[in-house]
């Protein structure tokens, strides 16, 4: 086996893993605050990519279009929380999770009707040929993906751990009733977590659209992979999901390179299965604590 190939597999694995980590971040944010696994997370990613495409199509300058797309998708997250999650009140986590699946199907169907079935491409953030090192190649956009993932992780980490809002979010996550007693509105915190998850999802959709295109159904696959990344990371910490994403991306890439690309898609499912077996007790325990 040639060294350049190994380097190439690792580069690809890290790029793809960063994408999974961004998607997984949204799962983690919402789960740690509300105990809900939000299966509409992949749709937020899709909405980010597709909305950005439409706004660029309207003739807006690209940076403005991208930022506006993030704002719009954040609003979708807020509306989703207000119209679908909040009315369910104190329903069990399972009920809320099923509501998010319904929401995902709804968003996907509307997107399919509005944008059609065809994939669309966004322009890369910076032009230029791919960079070569050790015989392997890396695209400028891959560097953007990896860089933005890191920045996003740090920002979310600081937000959760170093700000008042973050402390309130954490408090609501640890014990809703006690948090309410000190004046933290749990419903407000749920809303904030959805807004934050929608925003990170949208950013994810925007950074990957130049390399893998955007289409109305992209949320299905990304949602699954992002969930596996988040579950591997334990669904609570920012760095856990980052490592989970990178682990999954690297495992997929190395498996496709050294075993067979036919088995690549099985990797995520095997990981998911393993995580559910090993971590199921912990996930359930976390759920009880949140309730």
């Amino acid at each position: 086996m040639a060294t350049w190939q190994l380097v190439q597999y690792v580069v690809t694995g890290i790029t793809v893993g960063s994408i999974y980590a961004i998607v997984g971040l949204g799962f983690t944010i919402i789960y740690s605050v509300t105990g809900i696994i939000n299966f509409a997370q992949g749709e937020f990613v899709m909405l980010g990519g597709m909305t950005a495409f439409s706004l660029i199509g309207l003739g807006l300058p690209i940076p403005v279009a991208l930022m506006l797309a993030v704002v719009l998708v954040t609003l979708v997250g807020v509306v989703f929380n207000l119209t679908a999650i909040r009315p369910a009140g104190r329903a069990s986590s399972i009920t809320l999770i099923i509501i998010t699946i319904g929401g995902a199907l709804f968003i996907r169907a509307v997107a399919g009707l509005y944008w059609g079935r065809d994939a669309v491409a966004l322009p890369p953030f910076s032009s230029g040929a791919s960079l070569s090192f050790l015989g392997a190649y890396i695209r400028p956009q891959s560097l953007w993906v990896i860089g933005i993932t890191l920045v996003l992780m740090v920002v979310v980490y600081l937000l959760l751990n170093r700000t008042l809002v973050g402390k309130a979010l954490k408090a609501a996550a640890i014990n809703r009733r006690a948090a309410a007693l000190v004046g933290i509105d749990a419903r407000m915190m749920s809303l904030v977590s959805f807004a934050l998850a929608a925003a990170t999802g949208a950013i994810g959709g925007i950074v990957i659209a130049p390399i893998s295109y955007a289409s109305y159904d992209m949320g299905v696959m990304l949602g699954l992979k992002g969930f596996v990344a988040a579950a591997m990371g334990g669904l609570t910490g920012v760095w856990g999901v980052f490592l989970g994403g990178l682990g999954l991306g690297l495992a997929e890439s190395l498996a496709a390179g050294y075993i067979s690309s036919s088995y690549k898609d099985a990797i995520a499912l095997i990981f998911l299965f393993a995580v559910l077996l090993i971590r199921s007790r912990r996930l359930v325990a976390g759920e009880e604590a949140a309730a």
Partner: protein
Amino acid sequence: MKKVVFIALALILVIGIMPFTACGGAEEEYKIGAVLGITGFNSALGEPEKQTLEMLEEAINDAGGINGKNVKIIIYDTETDSTTCFTATKRLIEQDNVLAIIGASSSGVTMAILDTVTDAEVPLVSLAASDQIIKPVEERYWIFKTPQTNSMVVARVYDYLSDQGISEVALITASDGFGALGLEELKDVASTWGMTIVADESFDPDDTDMTTQLAVIKGKNPEAVICWGTNKGSAVIADNMKDLAMEMPLVMSHGIANRDFIDLAGEAANGVIFPAGKLLVTEQLPDDDPQKDVLLAYKADFEYLYGEGNVDTFGGHAWDAFTLITDAIQSLVDEGKEVDRAGIRDKLESAELVGISGIFNMSSTDHLGLTPDCLVLVEIVDGEWTLAEE
């Protein structure tokens, strides 16, 4: 009293249903049915097919129909669903009493109605690709189709590559149904064309990055890469090959024969070669090409009605099906024979037509009647389709 009411109700019911079941007798017009995937997964196929049929119906009736008798096209949407298609087909046969049926748009949905039309003895002209629709021909007495098959496309690709003196190829195929069918055929006939497959990789069309698979291929040093998939995955591959500085020829399938592929892949689309129906490069065909006039006329008519640049291969398949059936009716009328389902079927089996998808020569052993040379190799140059030199 109750009894009277019951009888009255029964009578109303019988009278109410009568008009629907009454059939037989001379029809006012020639009715042809169509079951198309206008909505759902196949909407990209069904929509231009429907537009084409409506255009042709109007054209033939404006020109006086077939010897003064109008042609009526009855179109139902299958919603790309086998069950819906089955119900619609039943309705076409039993209530609308059509002479022949066109459709469905895709192979899976067509398979669902083969038994129905065979049992009812109604000729069916399918617009779907799979070979299995018309094979084995003994069991497919009533079934015909117009699109080129997968095996022709593969034959055309290998033919082109061997002309270029290439014998070592790497395959990278989509893990969906389209890619799997392509892979099977590519592997089956590789040896007959003297091709050695040095790498066989697959990709999920939804994947974000295919550089790993391409790095494996690059390590095997093939003379050319053959990619079998539809727009999105194929565009990622074209892009990733540029990223990895892979210079060998990239040959793709007919799954990318549309503008969207070029829009998606952008710069990376340049240099990609793929087999397609001649409609894509109509203007560039040599003037002595027997199909050129037909293609130019269809393109002009379609784009006049539905917009510049909108003509596509799928509508062409519907053009062929409609023309085959109306030609069959015309020749029955000319010969003074009765126009019925069996008569149309017999005429279809001996049909000869210079059509959009190719030059048809149907026979009792071949219910498609096309040869691989109905496909041309197209190269994308500066974002435009260009007839490739051979």
